[in-house]
């Protein structure tokens, strides 16, 4: 940090404050260390280190002496990455989750936004009940939600056999959207609560004037509320995109309901099946590429929405 003590324009007060701060920091070094050490050590061990190990593993390749010789790991440079880029199943799975995300994320967030706005408007009675009803599915783990919906989609056991005996939700054409429905069911309420909390934080004086001018609730929502809660919506969008690319539990469960979900259905399923072959080096390379892809995409969304807000 640069200190401007030499600059004559700096007000005296600021200088003393800065100096005091500096001494305080040195004095409390022990306390600061006590506060940050536990988290930092664990973060290093279980976030940073695994990423480094994955990168390292992805640069190795297994060599055997002869066909049945002892396998040894040797440095292979970007051999695994070359395989990743030639792996059609991997890119097909990426394309599949992207298709999924392009449709599912807007529907889910649109519904979450609509419900949050309705809960925040004077149009609805019984808000407490609805808030809890919509949020309840979030308490259902993805695996359990997938098991439940597996029964609900079943042509024989479903309460809606009138529909499910006609339409095969678990067939190759629809299973992706059947999974999208499970994810939507679980996460609408969660996103709704985040958006709703942001709406509650808006002081109501801001739209008092609009209300007195006779603006409708829809108009107030569109012109005043939505622009003010853009940061919350961006946050939910980024978490949703990350979630989409990481899709695993739901399709993994659906594998036992239908053969339409293969072991390369989503990138993480592919990583899991590659790792259990076992080909950990290739699986590590898949992981690294997927992580970079996820990071790049959420970063792009962040930048895009920030630019739009300016």
């Amino acid at each position, binding site marked *: 940090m640069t200190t401007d003590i030499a600059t004559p324009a700096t007000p005296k007060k600021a200088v003393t404050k800065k100096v005091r701060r500096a001494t305080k920091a040195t004095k409390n070094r022990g306390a600061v260390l006590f506060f940050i050490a536990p988290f930092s050590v664990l973060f290093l061990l279980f976030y940073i280190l695994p990423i480094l190990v994955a990168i390292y593993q992805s640069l190795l390749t297994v060599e055997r002496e002869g066909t049945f010789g002892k396998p040894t790991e040797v440095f292979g440079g970007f051999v695994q990455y070359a395989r990743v880029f030639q792996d059609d199943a991997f890119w097909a799975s990426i394309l599949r989750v992207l298709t999924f995300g392009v449709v599912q994320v807007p529907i889910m967030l649109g519904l979450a936004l609509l419900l949050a706005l309705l809960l925040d408007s004077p149009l609805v*009675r019984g808000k407490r009940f609805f808030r809890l009803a919509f949020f309840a599915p979030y308490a*259902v783990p993805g695996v*359990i939600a997938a*098991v439940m919906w597996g029964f609900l989609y079943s042509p024989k056991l479903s309460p809606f056999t009138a529909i499910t005996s006609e339409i095969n939700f678990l067939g190759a054409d629809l299973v992706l959207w059947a999974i999208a429905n499970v994810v939507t069911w679980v996460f609408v309420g969660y996103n709704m609560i*985040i958006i709703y909390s942001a709406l509650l934080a808006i002081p109501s004086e801001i739209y008092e004037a609009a209300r007195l001018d006779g603006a409708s609730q829809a108009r107030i929502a569109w012109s005043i509320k939505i622009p003010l809660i853009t940061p919350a919506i961006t946050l939910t969008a980024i978490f949703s995109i990350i979630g989409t690319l990481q899709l695993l539990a739901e399709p993994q469960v659906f594998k036992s309901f239908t053969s339409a979900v293969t072991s390369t259905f989503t990138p993480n399923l592919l990583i899991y099946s590659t790792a259990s072959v076992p080909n950990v080096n290739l699986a590590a390379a898949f992981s690294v590429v997927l992580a970079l892809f996820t990071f790049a995409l959420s970063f792009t969304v962040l930048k895009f929405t920030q630019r739009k807000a300016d």
Partner: protein
Amino acid sequence: MSATTTPVKKHNGPRESLFSRAGAMLVMAICTFYFLVPIWWLFVAATKDRADFTTSAPLWFADFNLIENIGNLAAYRDGVFFRWMLNSVLYAGAGAAIATLFATMMGYALAKYSFRGRETLFNVVLGGVLVPATALALPLFLVFSQVGATNTFWSVFLPSIVSPFGVYLARIYATSSVPDELVEAARIDGSGEVRTFFTVATRLMTPAMVTIFLFQFVTIWNNFFLPLIMLRDEKLFPVTLGLYIWNSQVSQIPEIRAYVIIGALLSIIPLIIAFLSLQRFWRSGLGTGAIK
């Protein structure tokens, strides 16, 4: 179901038309149906015996056998299901508690002390928020297999006590709700820094801490990829992994289906209780995270 009416605060202004009120309530009703019917179905299905499950109306009760079903589940394979529940409670309860403590300490330090590298540290942690748990499962497996510690309690427990999102939330919350003056006053009274944190700061940060605890609890409870990839020993399974394995065996062992359903119901009850009882806290805590 009788809806509890909250007092409507924003009542000054023109009354909304009946048409838009009716439209809004219709949307709410349809969504309530969509969100609650699957849970209702699960509850009803869990009360039926095997014959009724396939023959009676799926959305209404036949003979009420919930208690018998739970009894059968407890007897099945020496009650391994309840062992899984206990494991989940341990992984999620103890894990979330420790994660909350460490994240709060870290967030507090980032908010209330200036030290070299503070912003860098915070940005690295923020980067961690963008790395989802599933993406780390395989890398964690590689780390634990290096030290031969896969298939242990710790291989699932230790990674879940790190919550970057918790640090983010704690920092924002500490900045806005723990006044510098108060920390300073405690200092003048001769309270040590650590004591000030535990006696003054944690009290003011309770809403944020409850939020961090709950969301970390849910994250761990729902975590699936990490135990799936780490654990082989059935005795260490969390309930999600156990039920997943059972569900994938339904076609070979048909009677297991009843256990999957009753187990699924029992596995969501702790989370529903946690959310209902603590909602006053987590809603205000979440609000802080979303505004900034």
